[in-house]
């Protein structure tokens, strides 16, 4: 009964989405006020219905309704309740329903917070979002129905893949999806502007906070995915250049480019057509990420559902939405001329470099990800592209990008000469060199080339990000949330750079077999294996090792790596144990028993690993802060005093 309610709710939501798409697009076109008005109840109704549908799915999971195919295939009565809830989006069908639900939530937010925007514009935005919703709901109902029943019902379910039974993975997909779907808002704003054939600085100011929030979620999603791979997959890898990881990274890179290009369009009225293109591209890559993971075009550990008919559906959907938007772009982009110019060493040109380098980085990742598929299509046989390609080629655009962050933050809008900034650039660089080299040579001792370069660049970014805010404080000026947010995000980038380069250059790992009482040394650390015990989890039985870690002979921590045997799927899984700290992470992973009470282990010391996650958190928090800036809400105050029918706001030269 409950699953059928969810099913009907989905079908009704599809009808409302169709109405929303039609009235949103046709209303402004025909000048029908009441049509435009009709989009709002459609948006609200869709949100309620999809919330109901998703609730019904979760209900079916929590109540162990094994007559529902999804539940039988991905859950089990012995599974802890929080994983039963998470199992609802830990599969293809459920995650699609979640996708459209999140879309309806974003759409509702756009409808609710856009009361000060011109009505026809909002109607078009809602119309475009409606089209996307129709596509996804059709896809879900036609090829991937989450409420499909099994006849007869199963006595119990197959269980959730043990790898997915983990806290990081219960929140990683939702974050990612909120981010992906968020870029549909930027896309809808871009399409609405192209339909109107008009794009001014105000448009960029409307679009910025939405894009930044989406980017923030995507940042958290990428970091969580990486964190999960780091501690759950067990072997200390934190980025494998897996096609699915790449598919997440590409929209993030493009989203980062979009945020910066929107800033230029907002402040200076430049880069208009480029910003539009980036908005389209960022959303395309979000759709592509869905396409890659779910269609089976690219096989990876993540693709737990592969079905060519689904792929064909998504491809047609991509061709229609993205192809449509790009066709609109061919027609409208030439109309958008930027009057102002800028000098070579202005902030504009640094942000242009930022954009070019980020797009090159995306292209590098895209090329590497697509190469196996293209080789397959061209009949060149199977081809595997991994870290040996990605690591060096990704650095080609990234190193100059990171190096330019510092200089770029000192450059002024429009103006040519660096002027007084030159001293600051040099000063911060010298400081960074001293600090970075002191850190590398003093603390770690030199070993590779990349380590020192990365550390110096990382420190430089942090130092130079602080110059302007500190200067403002000294002069008694206030710091706006957007400046504070930008500063934090850039410091986050510096911290990540510092963390990754140090960790990659300085990490140590060893695979050993240890009998109880034996120990292995890794630099200043010694890992002593003390023995195993049997422990029972809610739905697994585990063998847990006790491993005492000492540093220079003094006790540091105790690690408990496990080998878990998940009872329902009869799958064995290594659960790594981590001792995390500000200086280093210690990892122990347990392999097989090798006889005589001895077990194989992998032990690792990863310096500054925590700074990678800290940096990502700083970036996301910086993004959040910058959306609080008052200038994004100023229009509302202005609109309250102005008459209702004043849809064309003027640019703000802030």
């Amino acid at each position: 009964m409950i699953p059928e309610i969810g099913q009907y709710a989905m079908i009704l939501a599809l009808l409302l989405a169709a109405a929303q798409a039609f009235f949103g697009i046709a209303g402004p076109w025909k000048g029908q006020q009441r049509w435009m008005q009709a989009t709002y109840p459609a948006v609200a109704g869709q949100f309620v219905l999809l919330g109901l549908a998703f609730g019904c799915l979760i209900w079916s999971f929590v109540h162990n309704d094994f007559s529902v195919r999804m539940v039988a295939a991905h859950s089990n009565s012995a599974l802890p309740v929080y994983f039963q809830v998470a199992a609802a989006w830990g599969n293809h069908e459920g995650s699609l329903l979640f996708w459209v639900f999140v879309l309806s939530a974003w759409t509702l937010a756009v409808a609710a917070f856009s009361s000060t925007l011109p009505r026809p514009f909002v109607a078009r935005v809602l119309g475009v979002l409606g089209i996307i919703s129709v596509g996804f709901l059709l896809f879900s109902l036609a090829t991937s129905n989450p409420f499909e029943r099994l006849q007869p019902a199963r006595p119990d379910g197959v269980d959730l893949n043990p790898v997915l039974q983990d806290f990081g993975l219960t929140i990683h997909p939702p974050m990612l999806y909120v981010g992906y779907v968020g870029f549909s808002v930027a896309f809808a704003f871009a399409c609405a502007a192209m339909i109107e054939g008009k794009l001014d600085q105000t448009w960029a100011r409307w679009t910025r906070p939405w894009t930044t929030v989406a980017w923030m979620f995507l940042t958290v999603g990428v970091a969580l995915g990486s964190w999960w791979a780091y501690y759950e997959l067990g072997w200390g890898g934190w980025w494998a250049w897996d096609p699915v990881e790449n598919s997440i990274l590409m929209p993030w890179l493009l989203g980062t480019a979009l945020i910066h290009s929107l800033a230029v369009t907002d402040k200076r009225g430049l880069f208009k057509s480029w910003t539009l293109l980036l908005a389209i591209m960022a959303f395309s890559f979000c759709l592509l990420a869905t396409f890659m993971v779910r269609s089976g075009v690219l096989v990876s550990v993540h693709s737990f559902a592969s079905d060519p008919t689904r792929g064909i559906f998504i491809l047609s959907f991509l061709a229609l939405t993205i192809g449509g938007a790009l066709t609109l772009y061919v027609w409208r982009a030439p109309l958008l001329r930027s009057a102002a110019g800028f000098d070579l060493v202005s902030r504009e040109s640094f942000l242009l470099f930022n954009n070019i380098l980020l797009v090159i980085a995306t292209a590098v990742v895209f090329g590497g990800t697509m190469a196996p598929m293209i080789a397959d299509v061209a009949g060149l046989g199977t081809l595997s592209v991994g870290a040996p390609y990605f690591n060096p080629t990704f650095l080609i655009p990234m190193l100059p990008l990171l190096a330019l962050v510092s200089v770029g933050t000192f450059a002024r809008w429009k103006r040519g000469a660096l002027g007084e900034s030159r001293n600051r650039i040099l000063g911060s660089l010298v400081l960074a060199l001293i600090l970075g080299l002191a850190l590398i040579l003093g603390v770690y001792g030199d070993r590779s080339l990349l380590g020192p370069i990365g550390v110096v660049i990382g420190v430089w970014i942090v130092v130079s990000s602080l110059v302007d805010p500190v200067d403002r404080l000294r002069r008694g000026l206030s710091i706006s949330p957007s400046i504070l947010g930008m500063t934090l995000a850039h410091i986050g980038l510096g911290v990540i750079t510092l963390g990754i380069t140090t960790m990659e250059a300085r990490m140590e790992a060893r695979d050993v077999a240890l009998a109880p009482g034996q120990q292995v040394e890794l630099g200043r650390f010694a890992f002593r294996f003390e023995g195993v015990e049997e422990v029972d989890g809610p739905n697994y039985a585990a063998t847990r090792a006790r491993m005492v870690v000492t540093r220079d002979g003094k006790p540091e921590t105790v690690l408990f790596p496990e080998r878990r045997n998940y009872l329902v799927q009869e799958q064995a899984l290594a659960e790594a144990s981590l001792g995390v700290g500000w200086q280093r992470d210690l990892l122990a992973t347990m392999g097989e028993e090798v006889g005589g009470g001895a077990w194989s282990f992998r032990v690792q010391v990863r310096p500054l690993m925590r700074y990678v996650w800290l940096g990502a958190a700083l970036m996301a928090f910086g993004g959040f802060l910058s959306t609080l800036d008052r200038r994004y809400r100023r229009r509302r105050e202005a609109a309250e005093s102005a008459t209702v029918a004043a849809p064309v706001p003027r640019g703000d030269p802030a």
Partner: protein
Amino acid sequence: MNRFIIPLLVFGLLVVVFGISLKHAPEKQVVKSALIGKPAPEFSLPDLLQPGATVNSAAFKGRWVLVNVWATWCVECRAEHPTLLDIKQQGKVIIVGLNYQDKDADARQWLAELGNPYEAVAVDREGRASIDYGVYGAPENFLVNPAGVIVHKTWGLTPDYWRTTMLPLIEGTTK
């Protein structure tokens, strides 16, 4: 012609590449197994339906055999089951079941409920024979010719797939 058409052209090209790749995708159902063209691994395992007896793979030589890896915990196997009954009806091939990491009582009840398409069912609780066959999961199907050589491997069977891909393999040589 303006330069703003370039993104559309690049996108069009990508759609074509994706499209071709998707057309290839159904062929991926044919799992590339190193075993194709090699003799089917021999096994001698307990018989599910006659406790105490064993099922010997050697006994089926000289006939077309479909080795079907299945389990009661496998939802797809339930979907596949009617197809297997149908194939048995057609009588072109005998079906030997490899009951994979399952409970005997569940498996017997399954056959009692849904019907038994199998000539014999071997119990492979520890997955020993399945390892020899390189089984990833259930269901998997291996078509073995009368000479005892594996000629085809696929995941779950559908009536269409059986008729269009596997049956011609059998008829192509029997005619």
